[in-house]
């Protein structure tokens, strides 16, 4: 078993992908002609974060593509719930099914094999195939930029971060956030609390208050609700948001790392309609430049000078600057990225280490 596992690990370095290489050899996907997308949302469409970002992209696409895009919300990550929702849409004539959760991955894989005429796109998914593509953003880029804002705003040099669950795609935002902060403020330290839930306002409030008691004066986040920002405003400190521009909920928010799904989905839907859908064995892993996200910056508290620095860095990232470039060591001193190299996508997804200056619970 262990051998089997390490083989798998090697085979799946990209790992954005329980990809089945055999499946990839299948014929190219044919054009769907008249595209009829439908969206299956994991959370409520007004969650203020992840699900709402996708819902807003859906509404923009309705306008831009001049079509109605139906959706079903609050579909849990369970095969018994996802499958009928998708099949109802397909029976109804939908030929592009857009998901929203990594827990949809296995079911989408099965559905994609069962319905070869339908294209499946799954933000945050892990499975891919000839008519199935998982998509995620390089959120470390945008969190790095918001980290710069946090680094510039902190007086105590203590920054807090409320995170959902400790694994690759969250850990990289934690690391990038502090790396951004240290770029403008080398003395910055980051205390991170993992709530163990994607959207739990009660735990997020407790975590934020605990961080504030420890003396942090800026709070970043990677959870699905705006709670940490609201708590930051109540305590008169600053914060930065994730998923959407959270300044709508809180005056504390000075920068937000936001999704721009419409920028990816519009050309993608047009490509599918034209028969030019490009399967990707490891899915699409989008940078700012590719529509993966952006920042909503900056709030009133950010000086013109700091804002200029952040925007210049944003331009540099769009032009190709790498965040996790070597030499880079973790907080225990282990070299993670050698001089002159860049962390691979596979290592990003498997990131289970933190840079120097990050303190856990």
């Amino acid at each position, binding site marked *: *078993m262990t051998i089997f*596992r390490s083989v*798998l*690990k090697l085979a*799946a370095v990209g*790992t*954005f*992908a*329980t990809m089945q290489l055999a499946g990839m050899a299948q014929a190219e996907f044919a054009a769907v002609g008249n595209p009829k997308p*439908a969206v299956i949302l994991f959370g*409520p*469409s007004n969650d203020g974060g992840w699900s709402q970002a996708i819902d807003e992209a859906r509404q923009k696409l309705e306008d831009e593509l001049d079509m109605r895009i*139906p*959706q*079903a*919300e*609050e*579909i*849990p*990550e*369970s*095969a*018994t*719930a996802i*499958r*009928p*929702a998708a*099949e*109802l*849409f397909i*029976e*109804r004539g939908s030929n592009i099914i857009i998901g929203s959760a*990594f*827990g949809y*991955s*296995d079911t989408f894989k099965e559905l994609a094999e069962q319905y070869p005429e339908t294209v499946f796109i799954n933000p945050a998914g*892990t499975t891919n195939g000839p008519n199935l593509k998982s998509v995620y953003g390089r959120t470390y880029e945008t969190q790095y930029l918001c980290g710069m804002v946090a680094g510039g705003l902190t007086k105590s040099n203590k920054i807090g971060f409320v995170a959902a*669950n*400790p*694994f*690759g795609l969250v850990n990289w935002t934690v690391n990038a956030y502090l790396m951004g902060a240290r770029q403008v403020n080398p003395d910055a330290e980051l205390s991170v609390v993992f709530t*163990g839930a994607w959207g739990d306002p009660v735990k997020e409030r407790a975590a934020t208050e605990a961080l504030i008691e420890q003396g942090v004066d800026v709070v970043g986040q990677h959870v699905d609700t705006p709670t940490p920002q609201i708590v930051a405003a109540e305590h008169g400190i600053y914060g930065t948001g994730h998923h959407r521009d959270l300044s709508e909920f809180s005056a504390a928010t000075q920068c937000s790392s936001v999704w721009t799904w419409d920028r990816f989905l519009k050309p993608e839907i047009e490509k599918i309609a034209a028969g030019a859908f490009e399967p990707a064995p490891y899915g699409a892993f989008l940078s700012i430049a590719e529509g993966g996200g952006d920042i909503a910056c900056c709030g009133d508290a950010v000086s013109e000078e700091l804002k200029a620095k952040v925007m210049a860095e944003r331009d540099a990232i769009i032009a190709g600057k790498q965040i996790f470039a070597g030499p880079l060591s973790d907080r225990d001193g282990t070299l993670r990225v050698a001089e002159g190299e860049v962390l691979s996508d596979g290592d990003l*997804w*498997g990131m*289970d280490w933190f840079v120097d200056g990050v303190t856990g619970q």
Partner: protein
Amino acid sequence: MTSASPAAPAAKTRLRLVPLLEPRQSVAEGLRIGIYVGSLLLAVLVSVLLLAGAGVPPGDLGREIMTTAFSSPRALGSVLAQTAPLVVAGLATAIAFRANFWNIGLEGQMILGAIFASYVAIHDIGPESARLLLMAVAAALGGMIWVAGPGLLKIRLGVNEVITTLLLNYVAFNLLLHLLYGPWKDPVSAFPHTEQYEAFEKLPQLGWQNLTWALPLSGLLALALWWAYSFSRLGYLVDLMRSNATMARAVGVPVLGLSVASILGSGAVGGLTGFAIAAGIEGRMTQDFFVGYLFSGVLIAFLGRNHPLGVVVVAFFMAVLMLLGQSLQVFFGVPSALVQLIQAVFIICVAASEFFLTYRMHWRSAA
């Protein structure tokens, strides 16, 4: 009746009626069915009005539901796939409730069941041909271990099992998170679920729609329990104990043994619920496979009156309600909040009908 004085206008004469409740000694079968059907019709009426208010024409609604949600084999398959785990969850709860043990720890027991089953799968314990059986046995054992503590505390010290079983759900969830973000993280994707079970570690497909053996097995479990409760000495004694434990003990019923058996049985079936989802639906242990089953289980046991076959019927209708909610969203674009409201209307109406089965209501004038 108040007598109207000749001087007062007739409108002042008011007949005030107040209800008088009388517990029913017995309920005729026809009346029982009539009341249930009546409560369902009321729920349909309220729902149609709610939907009409949200802009769904009642005529369209009926046509869509009949043609799309219930007529295709695909739709029936979806409903039955959802029914299977609900049946097992309802049975787990009903076994405990029937013995007056308020087991609110179904989710914890499901988690332990799935953890034990996954342990067998991940560590390749036993030959491939016996793997599924071993996983099921391990799952039952896990559920029993998780309910044993509250059971012991209740029997020996009288500690309220509602609290202990409920709180152990959180302990179990944190154990699950520890495993999924730690040693059992998927080695393929580094995402928080276990690796996929091998083909022989999943319940086989039935070959019709997407149904697995979870469905017939849950039906068999319900039949076995029905037989045990309705025809065996054991069932008779459990019901005797339930209606009056002191009297039962006095006439020599082994109350302690029956309580222990019921509590552990409930935990075992709770563990099997976790197994049914992990091995029968998801093909691995995921982070939130158990979410919602606690309340569904309590509701199903309650509405099914802790009767194994009642549980099956109610579980089926629960599944229909869940799936109907999806089609309402897909076809009419109604928000999911409204769908949940409609589901609640159905449940409240059916639950309230219990009242009319328990009591006969006389209207008396309050003179």
